[in-house]
Each structure stands twice: as C-alpha cells, then as structure tokens.
C-alpha cells in the first residue's frame, strides 16, 4: 500500500508540512518495500491559487491510498474523497513518526475538511 505524506523537506526525517497544497515536498511511502520516494512540490506550492486542488490530483495520480498531513482544505478534501483516498490529518512530528503512527493503526480518517481555503 502506498501513502503520501506532506513534508517540509525531501527526507523521511524531515517534519510533516502542516500545509497540504503548499507543502514543499510530498514523500511517497510504499509499505510493501518500506521505501520512501521524495517528490518536489515547489511548483504547486507557489501556485497563485488552487494549490490544494493540483496537489490532490497529484496524490491521486501517484496511486496512493492514503494521505498523512497537517491540515486539509475543502477543495483538496473534495478531490481526495472523490478518488477514495483516505486523509489522516493533525500530524506534527517527522514523516517517520507519522508513518509509524499510521502503521500502529487506530487512526480515524478525516470526515470533513480541517483547513481553510485560501486564494
């Protein structure tokens, strides 16, 4: 199974970026191979508007089944739900920590957007 984690840096030891659409990096984690791949999100992060929409589309294209992030705004939420990607929010530590708590289970997927839409 594949996850995407919003990250402040390219390494799994970097902190989870609290923003989803404007995260500097997206880190892809594959649970079968336990491997991490970093995706530079600078272009989306600097979009004048609609960063969340674009970023959500990118997550769907990656084939990820779940997203771990800080907050998820209403438009990105709509896109991810439509594509059956589960969203887990509220992460504050490192990407590694976030993946660990996902592995431990007991996480409730986000039922409604918890970020603010910005233009």
């Amino acid at each position: 199974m594949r996850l995407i984690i919003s990250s402040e840096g390219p390494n799994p030891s970097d902190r989870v970026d609290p923003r989803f659409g404007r995260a500097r990096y997206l880190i892809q984690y594959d649970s079968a191979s336990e491997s991490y791949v970093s995706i530079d999100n600078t272009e989306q992060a600097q979009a004048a508007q609609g960063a969340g929409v674009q970023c959500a589309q990118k997550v769907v294209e990656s084939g990820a089944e779940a997203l771990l992030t800080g907050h998820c705004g209403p438009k990105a939420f709509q896109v991810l739900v439509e594509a059956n990607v589960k969203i887990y929010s509220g992460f504050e530590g490192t990407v590694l920590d976030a993946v660990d708590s996902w592995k431990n289970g007991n996480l409730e997927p986000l039922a409604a957007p918890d970020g603010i839409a910005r233009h």
Partner: protein
Amino acid sequence: MRIAVASGKGGTGKTTVAVNLALIAARAGQTVHLGDCDVEEPNAHLFLNPDYDFVRPVMVPVPVVDHDACNHCGECAAFCEFNAIACLPEKTMIFDDLCHSCSGCWLVCPHEAMIPSERSLGTVSSGTADGLAFTQGRLRVGETLVPPLIQAVKEVTGDESWVILDAPPGTTCPVVETLRDADYVVLVTEPTPFGQHDLALALDLTRKLGIPCGVVINRASAVPSPVDDYCVREGVGILARIPFRREVAEACAEGGLAIEADPEVAAVMTELFRTLQSLGVKT
C-alpha cells in the same frame, strides 16, 4: 476626460473626493458620470441616493462537464492556469470559484466535453443623482473575481465630458483595472506615515501604467507634512490640501456632503475641479 481617484491606503477619502468633485463638475455645467469601481464595498451611493434606471447581473463564462462525453484525458486540467479543474481517473471536477473565465478548457478539450455555462459575479446598477449619471458595481458575496465586474461598470460610462471613477484601495488587479485607461489619476492620501507609505505604492503603480497623476492631501493641517516633502522629492504635484474639519467628518458620517459642510472645503474642491480642468481636459 476620464479621471480615476485612487489611494493605496483605504480610508483616505477617495469617495469623498470623487463624489464632491463629481457634484462640483455637474454644478459647473459639465456632463458627469461617476462610476463606483470599489465593487467589494461600494459606498458612493450613500452620499447620492441615486434613482436607478436599471440593475443587471454581470455574468462570466464557466465550464460544466458533459460526463458522457468526458474520458478524463486531463487536457483541460493541464491547460488551466488557475487550477480550477481536477482530472481524476474516473471524474473531472470543476471549482467555479477558481475559474477566471478564460474559455481555454473548452477550446483545448478534444471531446467537446466542456460546455460553456455562466456564473454571476454581481450586479451593475445605473441611474442619476443630483444632475449626474451614476453607476455602481456590487460584487456577489463570496465572489473573488473582481476585474470583469469593474469592466462592466466602465462600459456603462459613456462620452460624458467628465467620467470620474472611484477606485478600490490598494494596488491590486481591481485597481489596475480601474486605472488602466484613465487620462489622469488623482491620488488621495493623508499626512500620516501609513498614508505616505501607501501613496508611494500607488504612485509607483500609476507611473508603471504611464498615467499622469497628482496628489490630494486630505485631513491636512496648516503646517506642511512629511507627505508634502515626499511629493516634492518625487516630483509629483499636490493638487489640493483638504483641511481637517470635524464638521466634515460629522457630515460624512451622516451621509452628507463635504462641500456642504464647510465653505473652505467647498472652495478647495472647486479649486481642484478648476486645476483638473486646466490640465488639458476636454470640456
């Protein structure tokens, strides 16, 4: 002559200058059209109580997806500069409030699956008040796309000898849209550091647009302020200094006119009208 009244900082007195200048010009026998381009919070009507001849919606094109024709190829989403389209493997989604109505998606769609529809930006109201033509734009609550609505206000103004446009504050796209085809820009400021700071931004914008301009210092005291020095340094003319009068503030708060609240303010505004007239105005 098309005059835009702009400021940078909000609350400096753009609307006071625009409304009172328009009335003085009308009373001097000019044909005048006042356009309130501050469509996010129009307020010139509060001083004029116009009789409206029409109120009409302003629509812009937006796409809707024909889900039967769409095969989710993603060309529309890849083209959209404003990220208003998300193309998923089994669904193409449109976010109307991000759309800038460029029409690109239905031009690039290879499957004719993007159907042009419309959304309302707000309304334009037009009528007359106190011997002048008056037009106001009013943005729909929740809407963020402003320039096309300002264009719609400007389209109602005609060949009046004086078209006076009350601009929104700031230096953003709506201000550029208001100013772009003006013959002259009146920059209203106040003698405070904040007023001067934002005057500098507005002056920079006006010069980049290549439009001649002059400054009106509102709430001025008798003593020259640092804003006066700034204008001298920048080589921009001071058109008028409107004296600070409590009576004017009280009148404005009640929807009254500055020129009727204080004779000295009326004289300054009349002088401003003559100065603008002498600057090569077609009369």
